[in-house]
């Protein structure tokens, strides 16, 4: 995805005071960081503010980047994730979804979840094509717990491999895979409920 040598040179130039190098870094990574922030925070305004904060922090701590310890994109994603966690703690967003380990309550359907998924009248890809469905999925993603949300965002939206995600989240790879599975499954349950209510 990124040429390590090119990025290392870019960082060195930026540290030396080359404004053009810094602008190139901003141009390269702003879209990625904005999308992570947007999917995690759920709001465009928050995402814009958080993206600016990420770049400000990156600009200040750029000399601390060591290309021998990891890829630049992993370093950038780690900064983004840490800021998002801080933002989440400040805003105190409560976890809305239930854990997969919790027992279903009385209000839950007695129907098995696998059958609920199978009740879909159309495959998910068909729904996602429309803008409304995309917004629905985005809203459901915002309802996931932050641990599950960040894991599925980094894997399914940013295409990071498990080792990189484990490095960013500072958890073992097995935990990363488990969180991704649970996040995907909870998202499917939430969307299934939504579409059952609509239908």
């Amino acid at each position, binding site marked *: 995805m990124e040429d390590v040598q090119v990025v290392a040179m870019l960082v060195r130039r930026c540290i030396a005071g080359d404004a053009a190098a810094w602008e190139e870094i901003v141009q390269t990574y702003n879209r990625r960081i904005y999308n992570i922030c947007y999917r995690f925070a759920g709001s465009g305004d928050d995402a814009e503010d958080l993206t600016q904060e990420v770049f400000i922090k990156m600009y200040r701590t750029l000399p601390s980047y060591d290309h021998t310890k990891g890829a630049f994109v992993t370093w950038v994603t780690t900064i983004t994730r840490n800021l998002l966690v801080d933002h989440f703690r400040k805003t105190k967003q409560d976890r809305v979804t239930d854990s997969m380990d919790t027992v279903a309550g009385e209000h839950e359907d007695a129907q098995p979840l696998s059958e609920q998924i199978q009740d879909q009248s159309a495959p998910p890809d068909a*729904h996602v094509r429309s803008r409304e469905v995309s917004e629905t999925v985005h809203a459901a993603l915002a309802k996931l717990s932050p641990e599950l949300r960040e894991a599925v965002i980094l894997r399914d939206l940013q295409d990071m491999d498990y080792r990189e995600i484990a490095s960013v989240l500072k958890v073992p790879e097995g935990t990363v895979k488990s969180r991704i599975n649970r996040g995907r499954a909870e998202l499917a349950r939430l969307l299934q409920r939504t579409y059952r209510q609509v239908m």
Partner: protein
Amino acid sequence: MPDQTSNGMHCNEFDLLITDALDGVLTGIALERFQAHARSCRACGPLLAEAEAGRNWLKGLIEVEPPASLVASILASTTGVDSQRLRVPVRAVQPRISRLEHVQGSISGFFEPIWGMVRQPRFAMSFGMAFFALSVGLTVAGVKPTDLAQISLRPAAIRLTYYRTQARVVHYYENVRIVYEVESLARQVKRNVEPAEPGLRNTRPAKQKDDKNDTTQQPEQKQERNYSQSESQVILAAAPVGPSVNDLPVVSVTTYRRFV
């Protein structure tokens, strides 16, 4: 997730292999075992279906476009935040300053911390409170601001003002009722304690100087001391101290009157 074994695979192992299976990296016997477990386990089968559905939902999400002004605002904010880092330190040419400006700079440098402290709100509040207390005190004391203009600062005038003020204070003090009553009471007590003949009191000190052997000023018990009695001897209150009337010698006096 319950830790059950089905078709030779634990549910925890199955959980870890879900991502590999969905990514298509699980092949061969491992894939067969995985599929067999998914078919037989009532917990893991639905989990696999949900995970696959959720992944498909997420893969369908398109990447959003950041605002057009985002890059410009990032560059502006970062450049503004750490502009000193990029700035090369250049030794600026010092302009020539005169001796007067140098002294003024020294004075301002000396008073700058004081002025900085004075400008603090708490100092202003303290000063305000002190000014308020002073103005209230002067108002209660009857000092008017118009009187201040008439004050003469000549030494004689200051001395005169001092004596007048002192006299006024003494006059005020002596006219206080409680002071007057206490003083009159003290005078009355003193008058009762003093002897009736005031002339004797005046002559006694002169005599005392001349006659050093006079013991009249000593306590009376020393004069009435009974030397034949020891101090431990008990003296009854009812017993007569001196000789009784019967013990006294009878003295007969004969008077011869001469008739001329």
